[in-house]
């Protein structure tokens, strides 16, 4: 054994190397790895770069390695250098080794030649003292002494190549692994290298040379290993190895026209020169043949090219069409808005129009203006409804109304329409909450419906589902569910109960357009749903949406909206303070449709960008702050499936708080407009006589929300100040 290990520099036994290759790019990420654990699939396949290789090299011997590209030559060297590790079999080396493949790998262009020498020497495993001792020899060999303090990047390619060669040759490796190293450097230096190799061999060093240059292999090596597709094809005499290689090349060249020339008749080649001539001859004839074929193919290609041009034109046309299609909605919105501006300026009742819009209009007034006919308006109205439907993903009937309150009125009165099958009649009962939106009482009254009030859930501060279910009586025909206090009830659950019990379900989402429950927009759960811009509903310039998933509603909506404009004259004497809309009817004017379209666009953009609003973040911050004082404040919590987008932030001040609700309001009003929830919400029972409504119990939590609920307008830019003033207030009141 000891004799063996002294005799052999390299012993390779049954060596094999397998790589795992990713089948697609970007394979090695943590995410993908975790993914493949879960799916149990591996996105890799195996590739044996080398297999069943065995050989021994004695000390002082030189082994050549030849083979086509990708035959595993470099892999073998990397394995010998112990940079890669074998999958099977083994490599035993005796002595110090270091490969040099890309000789410039460790070199830094910015550093000087000396620094590079020093760095490379360290990489080759030399110690500082060894390097200092060898430096003169290295410099003598490289002939680089005059350039010692030049930056390495400034050397010419030929000179630069000398640096690592010299180091490698002078660094006293026991085994040298050389990969195509003589492709650079001038003739004289190459000769010097070959001389140096021979010296090293004489000193008992071992060399492994990988090269494509047959002449170099022939001149240096007695023994050569020929690798073919990762397997050893021949090991032995260099001339025979080269002959094998050439024969393989020969077969490869002949393969395309094997039918023409019998490959079995290939002469047995002893002499490499004959082989070369043979290869060249057969290559030339093969090429001529191929040239003819290429001409034919070229003609084909030319014909195909013109066909492609036609197809390309067709595709282009289609693409343009598609583009037009996809842009249709947004461009429609824009153009219609522009028309709207002109129209509104022209029309006499442009009272609520904002100044910026008017300015815009005056800028555009140079353009020819389209006639503002009723036809125009109808077109605009229809287009706006279509935009809303596409953004909300709603396929049923949808009406744009004059305001949120109008939309509520439309929703309730359409259910009481005589034209609706199973519609409600006067005296029918509707379950709803005592706290409700402006306009609900009026809508119920005008249809003669009787409200039955149920209390709120103390967590969501929205309709208590259990009470609601208990409250369903003989006369009950519908549930009207308003989303209150920036929170909501379990809408899906309520919708289910209504369906089961055969009740109409009306969903009023007038604060929080764009909020979703379980991925669906609020307003889409009810048989009829309303949506509106929220707190702005108190201002004159506003709008509302009424949508339904019942197709018959399409005509009923149209009926009611059309007839509402005539109601005003008839009902003048009955009007009270709720009847602001009644005088004007439900039909929105041009400017309000336009306002709604603006929201529509904002909404569609925020859906596309998946942009969490600043308001939501500001609200969260407030909620966090308030939850720090659980004895004083209570923030309504919507069910987990809900993502509410209220435009105000609501919370309750508990009775145990050491300050009055007025204190808090003053503190908040000091910095921001807004205030008590009473601004948007009404106490519904007060609008009815005791005989005209039914309260299910004492409505404890409803009273609580009405009495002690605070709503702050959610404006992200004011978010900090809201928090500030709350903090200040809490700080002031804390000592009590």
């Amino acid at each position: 054994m000891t004799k063996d290990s002294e005799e052999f520099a390299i012993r390779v036994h049954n060596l094999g190397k397998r790589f795992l290759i990713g089948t697609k790019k970007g394979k090695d990420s943590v995410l993908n790895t975790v993914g493949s654990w879960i799916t149990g699939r591996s996105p890799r396949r195996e590739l044996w770069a080398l297999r069943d290789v065995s050989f021994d090299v004695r000390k002082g011997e030189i082994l050549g390695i030849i083979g086509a590209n990708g035959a595993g030559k470099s892999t073998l060297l990397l394995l010998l250098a112990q940079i890669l590790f074998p999958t099977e079999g083994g490599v035993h080396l005796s002595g110090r080794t270091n490969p040099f493949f890309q000789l410039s790998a460790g070199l830094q262009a910015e550093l000087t030649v000396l620094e590079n020498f020093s760095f490379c020497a360290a990489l080759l495993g030399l110690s500082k003292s060894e390097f200092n001792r060898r430096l003169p020899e290295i410099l003598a060999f490289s002939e680089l002494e005059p350039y010692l303090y030049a930056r390495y990047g400034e050397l010419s390619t030929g000179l630069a190549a000398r640096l690592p060669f010299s180091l490698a040759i002078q660094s006293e490796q026991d085994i040298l692994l050389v990969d195509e190293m003589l492709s650079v450097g001038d003739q004289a230096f190459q000769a010097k290298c070959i001389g140096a190799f021979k010296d090293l061999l004489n000193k008992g060093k071992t060399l492994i040379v990988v090269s494509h240059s047959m002449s170099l292999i022939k001149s240096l090596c007695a023994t050569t290993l020929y690798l073919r597709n990762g397997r050893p094809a021949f090991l032995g005499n260099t001339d025979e190895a080269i002959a094998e290689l050439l024969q393989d090349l020969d077969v490869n060249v002949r393969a395309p026209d094997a039918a023409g020339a019998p490959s079995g008749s290939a002469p047995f080649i002893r002499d490499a020169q004959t082989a070369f001539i043979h290869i060249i001859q057969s290559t030339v004839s093969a090429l001529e043949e191929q040239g003819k074929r290429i001409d034919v193919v070229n003609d084909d290609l030319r014909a195909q090219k013109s066909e492609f041009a036609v197809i390309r034109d067709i595709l282009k046309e289609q693409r343009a069409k598609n583009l037009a299609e996809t842009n249709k909605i947004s461009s429609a919105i824009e153009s219609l808005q522009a028309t709207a501006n002109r129209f509104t300026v022209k029309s006499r009742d442009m009272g609520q129009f904002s100044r910026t819009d008017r300015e815009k209009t005056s800028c555009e007034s140079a353009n020819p203006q389209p006639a503002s006919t009723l036809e125009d308006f109808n077109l605009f109205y229809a287009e706006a409804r279509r935009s809303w439907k596409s953004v909300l993903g709603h396929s049923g009937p949808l009406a744009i109304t004059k305001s949120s309150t109008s939309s509520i009125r439309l929703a309730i009165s359409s259910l009481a329409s005589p034209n609706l099958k199973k519609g409600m009649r006067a005296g029918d009962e509707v379950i709803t909450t005592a706290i409700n939106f402006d306009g609900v009482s009026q809508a119920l009254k005008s249809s003669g419906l009787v409200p039955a009030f149920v209390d709120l859930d103390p967590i969501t501060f929205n309709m208590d589902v259990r009470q609601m279910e208990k409250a369903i009586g003989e006369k009950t025909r519908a549930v009207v569910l308003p989303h209150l206090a920036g929170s909501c009830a379990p809408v899906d659950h309520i919708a289910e109960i209504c369906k089961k019990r055969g009740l109409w379900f009306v969903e009023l989402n007038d604060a929080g357009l764009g909020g979703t429950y379980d991925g669906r927009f609020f307003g889409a759960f009810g048989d009829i749903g309303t949506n509106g811009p929220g707190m702005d509903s108190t201002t004159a310039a506003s709008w509302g949406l009424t949508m339904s998933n019942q197709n018959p509603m399409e005509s009923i909506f149209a009926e009611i909206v059309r007839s509402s404009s005539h109601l005003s004259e008839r009902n003048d004497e009955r009007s009270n303070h709720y009847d602001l809309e009644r005088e004007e009817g439900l039909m929105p004017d041009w400017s309000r449709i336009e306002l709604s379209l603006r929201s529509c666009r904002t909404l569609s953009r925020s859906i596309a960008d998946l942009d969490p609003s600043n308001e939501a973040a500001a609200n969260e911050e407030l909620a966090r702050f308030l939850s720090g004082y659980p004895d004083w404040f209570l923030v309504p919590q919507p069910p987990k499936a809900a993502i509410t987008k209220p435009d105000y932030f609501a919370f309750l001040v508990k009775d145990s708080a050491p300050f009055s609700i007025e204190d808090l309001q003053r503190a908040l009003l000091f910095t921001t407009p807004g205030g008590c929830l009473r601004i948007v919400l009404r106490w519904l029972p007060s609008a009815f006589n005791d005989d005209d409504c039914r309260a299910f119990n004492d409505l404890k939590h409803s009273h609580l929300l009405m009495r002690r609920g605070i709503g702050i307008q959610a404006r992200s830019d004011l978010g900090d100040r809201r928090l500030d003033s709350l903090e200040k207030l809490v700080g002031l009141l804390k000592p009590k």
Partner: protein
Amino acid sequence: MNKQTGFPYWYLLGEMTRVEFKLRDQGTLFGFLWTLLQPTLMFVVLYMLFIKWLGHFVSQYGAYLLIGLVLWNFFQKATSMGLSSLKRRTSLIRNYRFPREIVVFSAVLSVFVSSLLEMLILLPFLFLLGVRPNLAWLWIPLIVVILLAFVISVALFLAVFAAEFHDMERIWEVVTTALFYLTPIFYPLTIVGGWKRRLLSLNPLTIIIMNARACLIDGLTPRPYASLAVIFLTAIAFAGGVAFLRRCEHRFADTLIA
């Protein structure tokens, strides 16, 4: 095979560190000044933001913040340099046979050298901020060595993962961002209460930074039990890191070279 005693790669380690350092800052004064800019700016911003508030909790908030930032900066830069080191040095790994951990060591050390220079420059500022030399400063070298060893251990693991997974850099960016806020760099631990405080104190970095501040500002000796725990942990992590890297060498050699 000729066995060499000890660690025969000091020369390589030194050379590689030097090359890394020179190349990163281009070896120029200006390059170095640029690296000073970031901690200085952070200091100014955080100081102005928090002196009113956190100044109530910490007596010498300026010095407190500066020490925290410099040490954090070292941790953050060194781990991210260490993380990418094996990947950056693929060509060296492909062409030379040497212990791979040296690549990671030198990446961290090169950052360490520039951090030391930073500290030297910032020392006069500490004096301006009211810090006076005291005997407890003798502990500083030990603390620095512990920090260095800790950072290297972290970098060893990161480098191996980064060689295997290309999204490691992103992940670590996110983690360090979170760590910045989870380590008392610009706030004192005292403002956090209860179990959160106990949780944050488990971070070795927290203990190292707090020890450094205790020595530098207050002239106190490091807290013995916590420090011993950190030393123990760091030693384990360091040995584990080297072992892990060597164990994984086969794997990442394939991924890097193939």
